[in-house]
């Protein structure tokens, strides 16, 4: 009965919600161009401050954000404050998991031969890929979050695959803490050097080069490290007690 009522309500909602939203978003005809009134236009053109001219990959220099990946330039430069909030959420949830799992007993999962061997071989590669992804976050798809998660996976593979590495997660905490603090300090450096918090105060170089985009790569490295250590911490905390299901 409850399910039927719910289903009915959902169907009603589906009908009316789609109709209501369809009026403004036009589900059937996507626009062929970015709407002119959206502020993203300025982001795409790297022209928020109104100084830039034409933008050419590999040639334009000293753009305001200087990242070839526009999503990255939004995430780490234009709206870097959101990202700070985002890693704070992650930090918080790692804290919460740690607090709630604090009383648990850490159990070592018994790992088989395949896991052990594969972990030894694959984990370094994954780690490397992760690092690659977040260092190239301003040029290619990806960035700190996927890179960090990848690192975390590598760490976990290593963690599960080896009997010798035991429960010492202290370094993770240190990395997490230091990376977070450095992010804020970087932001504060922007405040002192360039006048506003989290401002990109380093020269942004040439669009498309690895060493470009000012603090963006630095921030992404920090984010990557932080996310990596936090996600590892969360999953490691989860494995503290045996989950019976």
């Amino acid at each position, binding site marked *: 009965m409850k399910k039927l009522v719910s289903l009915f309500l959902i169907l009603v909602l589906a009908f009316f919600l789609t109709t209501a939203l369809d009026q*403004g978003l036009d589900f059937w005809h996507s626009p062929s161009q970015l709407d002119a009134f959206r502020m993203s236009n300025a982001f795409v053109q790297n022209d928020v401050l109104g100084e830039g001219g034409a933008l050419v990959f590999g040639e334009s220099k000293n753009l305001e954000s200087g990242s070839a990946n526009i999503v990255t330039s939004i995430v780490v430069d234009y709206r870097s*404050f959101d990202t700070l909030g985002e890693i704070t959420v992650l930090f*918080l949830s790692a804290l919460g998991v740690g*607090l709630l799992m604090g009383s648990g007993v850490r159990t070592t999962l018994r790992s088989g031969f395949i896991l052990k061997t594969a972990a030894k071989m694959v984990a370094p590669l994954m780690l490397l890929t992760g690092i690659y992804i977040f260092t190239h976050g301003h040029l290619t798809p990806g960035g700190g979050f996927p890179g960090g998660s990848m690192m975390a996976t590598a760490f976990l593979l290593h963690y599960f695959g080896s009997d010798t590495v035991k429960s010492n997660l202290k370094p993770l905490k240190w990395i997490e803490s*230091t990376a977070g603090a450095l992010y804020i300090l970087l932001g504060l450096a922007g405040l002192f050097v360039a*006048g506003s*918090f989290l401002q990109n105060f380093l020269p942004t170089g040439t669009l498309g080069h690895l060493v470009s985009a000012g603090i963006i790569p630095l921030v992404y490295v920090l984010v990557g490290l932080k996310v990596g250590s936090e996600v590892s911490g969360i999953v490691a905390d989860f494995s503290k007690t045996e989950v019976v299901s």
Partner: protein
Amino acid sequence: MMGSIIWLIALPLLAAFVSVVAQTYQYGLLVVTLLMNLLVLFAAPQGLTIIGGYEPPFGISLLFDQYALIALLLIQVLLLLIIVLARPLAKNYTPVILVMLAGLNGMLLTNDLFNLFVMIEIVSIAAFILSTANGKLTHTFHYLILATVSGVFFLLGTVLVYAYTGILVVQGLMMRLASLPVALSLIPMMLLIFGMAVELKLVPVSSWAKNIYGQANLLTGPIFAAVLAPAFGFVFGRMMNEVIVLHSLTGYTLLVMAISTFVLGELAAYRQTDLLKTLAFSSIGQSGLAVMMFTLGAPWAGILLLINNALAKSILYGVATGVTAAYGNASMGVLKGVFYHHRLLGVAFSLASLSLVGIPLFLGFFAKVSAVMAIFSTGLIWVPVIILLTAIVEGAYVMRWLLQLWSPAFEGYLASKKELPQKRNVFSAQQILVVGVLAVILFTMGLMPQRFVDALQKTQPAMAQYEMVGQGEQQ
């Protein structure tokens, strides 16, 4: 530089990240951070602070005006006093409280809708974690599910606002939204309202508050009722002033939700026999009243109500949870006559209850009067009738508790025949001092409404013009 308002967010976050590894100094770090924040609040100039070097429509900025100042001041002071009050408990949750502080400050300062969403989520998650301190995880889970659902609603609303207007900046967003056709702005506005409804404890979705507030301890009770509740109230006030365009449909729905929250919350509080539960429902009701004020375009009355409620509830919850912890139970039978042993706490509790009910000579009275006066100017004469009728119910249950808590004597007998609970140790001298300071603050504010009113009235120019229910349709 040093006086930039950004420190209010950067400092707690930095402290939080550091505190994870410096566990011995955690608590000191928290206190120092709060003190520094207070300094920053007084040093920072008012105005727009940009982040990342990009001007408002594009970058994120912080809006620090009189309104934000009041909210921030209230929250820093209360949080400082609460962590001193609940020191042993606060020690375990220091990083969480620090992050929550950053989130609260960010939530009240931010001038960007999406950033607001992020900050709300930070505060919500911190609140989930803090609520586990009650030791009742099913309630935390309940809260978590509801808050997250509403978070998703808020996110969708934000995104739709972006889709329709192309910007996310809070200040002045209302102008853009009001120029949209009703059919377009209705859904995002509805989503934004429901996105805040859970944290505001509005009626159909306030069920979580019953247990989270009703089984609180010395740390969570005051923090939820006196820090988180007013913070979300203030954010809602900002949203009502700058973002949300009310159509008659959303407006009346919101109004009905707010009124029913107030009425049903107080009615449910009336029947409780558990002190903490009573206070929980009272918090729900009061939140409804504040929301009603913001909805009816009387932010000024809403602010007063929020401040009064925050101060009163910090004392009420501080004393109630302390006494409950000491005597083992919050029921009327156990706590009868308990203030016979704890007179100072009793006096503070009485002051707070009288102010909460809105009895003259206390701050709550001026809050109630300004609320009713504000509603008169909207022309809805029946709303004050509801408010005042409900105020009778509210006064009735608060007074019942007050009388029971003070009087150890048997019913029908004079004082000489009394049954006293055995005296237990509730608070240390330092904690009593904190409660006393809170009571003095509340009392002084009530004594000098004039000056207080003058200070608050400066908030008026900074706020946009009042928007009435149904305003959105006039365009």
